[in-house]
């Protein structure tokens, strides 16, 4: 009589390949997600893709109530992300408005206020409180902030005449001089 060990059924090769390919794909997805999270905001030197912003009623730019970013080529664009619930945004609100009143008459600079995850009623109170007149609109479905990969508010992006991002300000400005400095560099 012989003593035999029960034989193990080998998994077919094609199943093994499918499993390993699936696992590799899963790992690649996780790695991609992690790298995206750690990527930070869009970086200076990158060309900003097109996006559209619908303004709150009462706000307009060149007579339009909605703009496409690509329509602003040839102008220096300052994109400011803010929210009414954001206390640091209040620190720079008056400085941004002052800078806008200084540069608006030149016609070479555009300020865009992008209101991040906010309620319109509270946003309006905020805009009125700081007397903000430059074009402002809600970041619907957070599409714009997702594209810029913002980490919080306030954040401000300075884009040159060719649509290339040149400077990113994380957090509030120290004063109106800091805003002027960046704009003047791009106007040269």
């Amino acid at each position: 009589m012989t003593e035999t060990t029960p034989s193990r059924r080998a998994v077919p090769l094609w199943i093994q390949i499918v499993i390993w390919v699936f696992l590799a794909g899963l790992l690649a997805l996780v790695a991609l997600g992690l790298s995206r999270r750690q990527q930070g905001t869009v970086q200076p030197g990158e060309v900003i893709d097109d996006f559209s912003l619908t303004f709150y009623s009462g706000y307009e730019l060149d007579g339009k109530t909605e703009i496409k970013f690509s329509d602003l080529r040839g102008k220096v664009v300052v994109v400011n992300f803010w929210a009414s619930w954001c206390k640091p945004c209040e620190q720079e609100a008056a400085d941004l408005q002052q800078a806008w009143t200084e540069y608006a008459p030149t016609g070479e600079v555009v300020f865009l206020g992008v209101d991040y995850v906010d309620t319109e009623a509270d946003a309006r109170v905020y805009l009125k409180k700081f007397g903000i007149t430059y074009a402002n609109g809600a970041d619907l479905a957070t599409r714009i902030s997702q594209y810029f990969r913002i980490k919080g508010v306030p954040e401000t992006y300075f884009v040159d005449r060719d649509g290339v991002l040149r400077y990113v300000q994380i957090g509030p400005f120290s004063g109106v001089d800091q805003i002027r400095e960046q704009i003047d560099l791009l106007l040269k």
Partner: protein
Amino acid sequence: MKAMIRTDVARNTKYAILFVLLAALLASIPVVSAQGPTPTDDDVNKIAKKLFCPVCENTPLDVCPTEACRQWREQIRQMLIEGKTEDEIIQYFIDTYGVRASGDPPNKIASYLIPVTAILLGTAFLLRALQMWKKPKAAESTVPAGEAKQVHQDEYFNKLEDELKKRK
């Protein structure tokens, strides 16, 4: 006579009370229909529970302590007063703040299928690894066990016989 006066007074008082009650009721009708029922915190939180704060990760809106969440809860209350349904309110939040405001992932099949498949595959791998660990290859012997025992016994037996022969 006194009894008649007392009856009149009682009747007048009854009419006065009825008049006051009727007047109060009439006065309250337009107020109620203009305002509608004010949603309670529970009504608001019932919907807020299904939404997430898009600023702080993984925090349901009903328990989120930030100013932003307070504003959004107020927005829910306003929409309830306007007569919006739960589905309409949730859809508004998704449209305005993006899918991450909702507890439901946008691509349900991929969101549930991938982790479930990964768990199943992982479990299968683990079980297989344990199985292999328990029964290492060395256990797979092709030598008949009885024969091996026989060989071993014969050797011993031969040795014993040799020893006995020597003693003789």
